């Protein structure tokens, strides 16, 4: 026991809650975030039969049209990083999903995943995709792979983890300078960096002084399916009333919701 008492306990690490605010009024639907995401996270293009349902997209941009009108909005959907009640974490029989206590990022461990896809059924945002094929890249393209991200094998589920390899790299750079904590802006996911209209603001929601906290608290900001109580850390904002109404209704009012099975 005497030897154990000597073990140094470092000061507790800073609690963070990484999240983002996506400005739908700025999104032009160009899809640069989707491409940057795929390149960053070693997502292969898949065989020809990989369609919208079977292909892998950790980030997707949907088009929404208002009924009887020509008004359109583009809505990028990624893992909402549910912070309060995380449906995928609850249902996973393998404990392959975990909410990181330090960063608030919902993490998916492909090596633990057995491919039952309960999490895909549980996710109200359909932010999870299944690997129907082993990853394959055209000859020569393997040199462009990101060494910080392990490729996923056939038969496992994957999702956005807010570019964890970039968090690792930022932590390494900070550690090289002897810092434990990151400065704001040192860690930014690929989609945020790629957006040509800078529609996505990323940061620490636990830091009340951050830009992302300020924007998330504004009345124009909302989250999808807020009534489910999942507590997403991905916020959206728009000055367009009809898009906000759409989000508030979430397709149907809770008491009119149709459930099958």
């Amino acid at each position, binding site marked *: 026991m005497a030897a154990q008492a000597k073990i140094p306990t470092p000061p507790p690490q800073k609690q963070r809650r990484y999240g983002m605010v996506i400005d739908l009024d700025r999104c032009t639907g160009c899809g640069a975030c989707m491409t940057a995401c795929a390149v960053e996270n070693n997502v292969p293009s898949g065989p020809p039969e990989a369609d919208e349902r079977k292909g892998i997209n950790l980030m997707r941009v949907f088009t929404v049209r208002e009924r009887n009108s020509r008004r359109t909005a583009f809505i990028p959907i990624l893992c909402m990083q549910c912070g309060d009640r995380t449906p995928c974490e609850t249902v996973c029989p393998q404990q392959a999903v975990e909410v990181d206590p*330090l960063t608030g990022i919902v993490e998916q461990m492909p090596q633990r995943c057995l491919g039952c896809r309960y999490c895909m059924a549980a996710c109200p945002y359909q932010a999870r995709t299944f690997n129907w094929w082993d990853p394959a890249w055209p000859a020569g393209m393997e040199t462009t792979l990101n060494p910080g991200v*392990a490729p996923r094998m056939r038969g496992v589920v994957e999702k956005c983890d807010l570019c964890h390899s970039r968090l690792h790299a930022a932590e390494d750079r900070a*550690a090289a300078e002897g810092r434990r904590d990151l400065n704001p802006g040192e860690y930014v996911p690929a989609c945020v960096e790629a957006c040509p209209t800078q529609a996505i603001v990323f940061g620490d929601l636990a830091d009340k002084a951050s830009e992302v906290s300020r924007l998330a608290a504004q009345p124009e900001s909302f989250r999808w399916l807020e009534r489910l109580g999942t507590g997403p850390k991905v916020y959206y904002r728009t000055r367009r009333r009809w898009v906000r109404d759409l989000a508030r209704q979430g397709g149907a009012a809770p008491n009119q919701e149709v459930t099958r099975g």
Partner: protein
Amino acid sequence: MNLRSVFSFLAGLAGMLALGWLVFPAVLYERIPQPAQFSHQVHTGEAGMSCSDCHAFRDDGSFAGIPRLETCLPCHTEPAGETPQEKHFIEAFVTPHREVPWLVYSRQPDNVRFSHARHVKVGEMACEDCHGAVGESARLKDFQRNRISGYSRDIWGPRMLRIGWKPGEGMKMSDCEDCHRQRSVVAGCLGCHK
């Protein structure tokens, strides 16, 4: 239960344990000699070098790991000593300018992320805390490759049963977790995986 059945049970048990603990590891691991010999003892002792003289950090905080040939060149364009190992090293690698394909004992699986900078510079750990007394070794031992997984035996450690385990013997996930738990350092799965 007669004595004979007890005896045959114990004999069978001992036989199977011997098979599992002695024969199986010998079959499981393939011994590969290093492409060149190297004495850490000579370099840290006579030459008075430290670990970081060869195993250095890059500017971005990533760890360079095993040094490249250019690190050896300032001292070893000509033989500095008289050993046949050094002569072989210079003839086979230095003169033709060929990188040494070192076999890395502590190479982790592809899905592991380990930041040397966070452990050494922020956590103030010594190299020996995980790697053991590599700096005092007189020669490079054979690399033992797991025939099934391809991983180095040093990940599991030399003790098959891991009884009396000491720091520096083995780098399994449970070894990382133990150390983190003792120091109350929290990390999620993706803190150490990628």
